[in-house]
């Protein structure tokens, strides 16, 4: 019996995984200014792992993940909540945006704020969600 998996696809999936992952971070980062954001970024990152799981199997893909899927979910949700609660600590209404500006070398300025953190939480949660769903479905035999 010949190999049920395609070697070529496996190679492609292995190479695409980091590429998609890095792209997803970029999409997340610039989401506030350009098309993209937490959901789209998370979807891309997840698709990196989904492709990998399709090429190999879910267990293999899970091993490549730094966190378990449920921890991803939990972390994502926690980050979202924290980003909303930070302003409460400061005595402002829930989810009020809190911004600081970092002055980077070369005169660059980086606006960091709780909404960006919020988006990061969405990013993590979406990865967790998609992988929970897809890994289990791919596992159906």
């Amino acid at each position, binding site marked *: 019996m010949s190999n049920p998996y*395609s070697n*070529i696809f496996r*190679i492609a999936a*292995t*190479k695409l995984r980091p590429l998609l992952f890095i792209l997803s971070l970029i999409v997340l980062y610039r989401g506030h200014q350009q098309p993209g954001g937490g959901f789209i970024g998370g979807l891309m990152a997840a698709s990196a792992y989904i492709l990998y799981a399709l090429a190999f199997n879910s267990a293999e893909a899970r091993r490549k993940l730094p966190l378990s899927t449920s921890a991803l979910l939990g972390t994502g949700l926690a980050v979202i909540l924290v980003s909303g609660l930070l302003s409460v600590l400061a005595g402002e209404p829930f989810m009020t945006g809190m911004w600081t500006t970092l002055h980077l070398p070369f005169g660059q300025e980086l606006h960091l704020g709780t909404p960006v953190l919020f988006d990061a939480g969405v990013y993590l949660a979406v990865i967790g969600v998609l992988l929970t769903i897809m890994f289990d479905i791919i596992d159906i035999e």
Partner: protein
Amino acid sequence: MKYIFVKIVQVIAFAGFYLWELLKANLVLAYDILTPTHHMKPGIVEIPLDIKSDAEIVTLVNLITMTPGSLSLDVSEDKKRLYVHVLYLEDPEAYREEVKTGLEKRVKEVWS
């Protein structure tokens, strides 16, 4: 330094070759699609591989697919044989030879 230079030249040459092949492929295909009768003589040919690395194999598969008249169908489990669907096949042996000396050599060069 020289090595890098050579590499760059090689890659550019390869890209040029690739693009040229691509253009050719599409023109030939266009001709066959647009003319009422089909002139094809298709067949599936096995090509034994000398290249070993994944990157090389993927590049070759890619190249074969994107060049005129050929389409990679499968790689054997041991990654030693490649199966190609050829559109204008006169002689399988000749085609094998053509790939071995043409495309495979170039791939080897690029990744060496």
